[in-house]
């Protein structure tokens, strides 16, 4: 079945393979193009460096009019990531635009890692620690980086 959503996801897949963006990779699961696995590598020179954080992206037929639901599978310690792995990112909610593709979504999440928005925290402990005890925060993040390799 060739719907707009599926057609667009095929193009997104081709684009991400032909023109890989640094530090992110993603592919649909074999039997379902609406379900993607992705990995974001923690950016260099940040506490997240070398982490291999796994995510899942769930699209539906309203894509790209509506954004996918994105969730971290790896354990995260980040002000904008809920304990469930779901994340609070404006471009995945009210600032979504159909021009964003999978690679743009993952790149945005990657840059969110070291540039959290503490104004609307999803994890209050992480937000407070980021603000007041940066070294302690880095230590907690490093723990999740090590867990991400397992």
């Amino acid at each position, binding site marked *: 079945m060739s719907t*707009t959503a599926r*057609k667009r996801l*095929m193009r997104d897949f081709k684009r991400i393979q032909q023109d890989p963006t640094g530090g992110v990779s993603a592919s649909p699961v074999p039997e379902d193009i609406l379900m993607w696995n992705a990995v974001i590598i923690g950016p260099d020179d940040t506490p997240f460096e070398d982490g291999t954080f796994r995510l899942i992206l769930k699209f539906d037929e309203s894509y*790209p*009019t509506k954004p996918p639901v994105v969730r971290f599978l790896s354990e995260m310690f980040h002000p904008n990531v809920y304990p469930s792995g779901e994340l609070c990112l404006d471009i995945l909610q*009210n600032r979504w*635009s*159909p*021009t964003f*593709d999978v690679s743009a979504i993952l790149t945005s999440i990657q840059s969110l890692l070291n540039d959290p928005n503490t104004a609307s925290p999803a994890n209050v402990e992480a937000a407070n620690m980021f603000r007041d005890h940066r070294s302690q925060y880095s230590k907690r993040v490093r723990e999740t980086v090590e867990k991400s390799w397992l």
Partner: protein
Amino acid sequence: MMSDTTSEDHYEFSDQFDDDFDLQDPGNFDSDNNYFNIVNMEHVKASERRTVAEIADLFSIMVPMSTILLMAYFWNREKLSEEYIEGRALAKVGLTDADLEVQRKSGQKVQCSPRTCPICCDTYTRGFQLACKHTACIKCYERYLGEKLSSGDLLSTRCLGQHDCRLVATLDDFRELSKDLESGYLEKTAASYLQSHSSSFKACPGPGCTSIIELTSSLAMLDLDQYMVECSCGKRFCLGCKNDWHLPIKCDLASRWMNINGERMKNNLWLDKNTKPCPKCEARIERTEGCNHMKCRTCHFEYCWMCMQEWSAHNGMFFKCVHFQPSAEAKHSGRATSARLKHYSIRFDSNIIDSRRDVNVRDLTFSSQQVLNKAVPTLSYTRRILAWTYVLLFYVTGSNQKTILETSVSDIESHAETLAELLAGDEQAAAPCLELSGYLETRVENLITHALETNWKLDRNSLTYTPS
């Protein structure tokens, strides 16, 4: 005066406040006043256009951009002007000065050689582009902007042609695309204007009504919760909370009451709401007309519908019926508040139902138009005021003022009873009816003033009561 319970028709309590009875002389509803005008949406749109044009003039920007900026600032002209001068306003909608120059032109439909749409990946020859000239297929643009309209988000209608382009589709672009999109856009901006001016515009909550009550500045400055309006559609509502009117009490108590009493009413069956067993023989009795003096058809016991005591016990006075006297047992148990609630809610329900039932009295044989036009509406009005006065009595603690209020209620109850009996009777006594109506009007106005102007001390138990 009564009939046995056989009626099949179900009484919907949720509708009970949508009464549409006529009131000829309701001081508070007088539409011939200086406080408000009843206007339509066109009037609001004209007012919106003036605001938009002023800002466009002031900063020499295009009208569509002025609309977007005003929406971003919730139509606060002062704040927008201040931040525009400081150079911060454009950033709020994600634009730069350079973008603003580009945005002066509107977008356009384009015809092109077949190419792939960046959004849906279909091949297209009919495209659309904003002034930035990044193209996407016209279907995607229509779907996207239609989606933005239905979600009410007109501030992030970004270019679809390129993902890092900041340009925003404005009214001009919606217009270029289609008439429907243009009119949808205009509806949304007007709605946004209306919402941001809720202190001066109150949309009528009447079903299907599109009128808007525009308050004059003198009223907008006042506490609105004692002002009731009547819209041209006949809907009466409180300017403070937009619920049905609830004089002589204010919005906060009325809404507390509806929270606890509304729950209770929803849980009861029609039978419980509309019928009561005869206090003597327990035959189920439904009262279909407006007087509280009941006589059981089965056992001939005469009693009061509100307090269920023998009628003669009133002795022409309703004070005992109005006043709540806790039983010795209830006084010392935790159920006192619940007993109080029951006492007052029975009286509230009873009067609300009567205020509506009394309207039907006009079906009777009264020939005097004057009586119908005056006595009937006055009786309805009186019942309604009484209903909400019982709510006040539930919430206030005992005091001299409360006793005075109870005395007034008792007096008004007894005169309303007499009037209801006269109206329901066979004799067409026009003069006494009119006289009684005049008396009730004066008493009711005094009661409202007394209720509104007294600094009541509220009962903590009543305020915190939640039905179990």
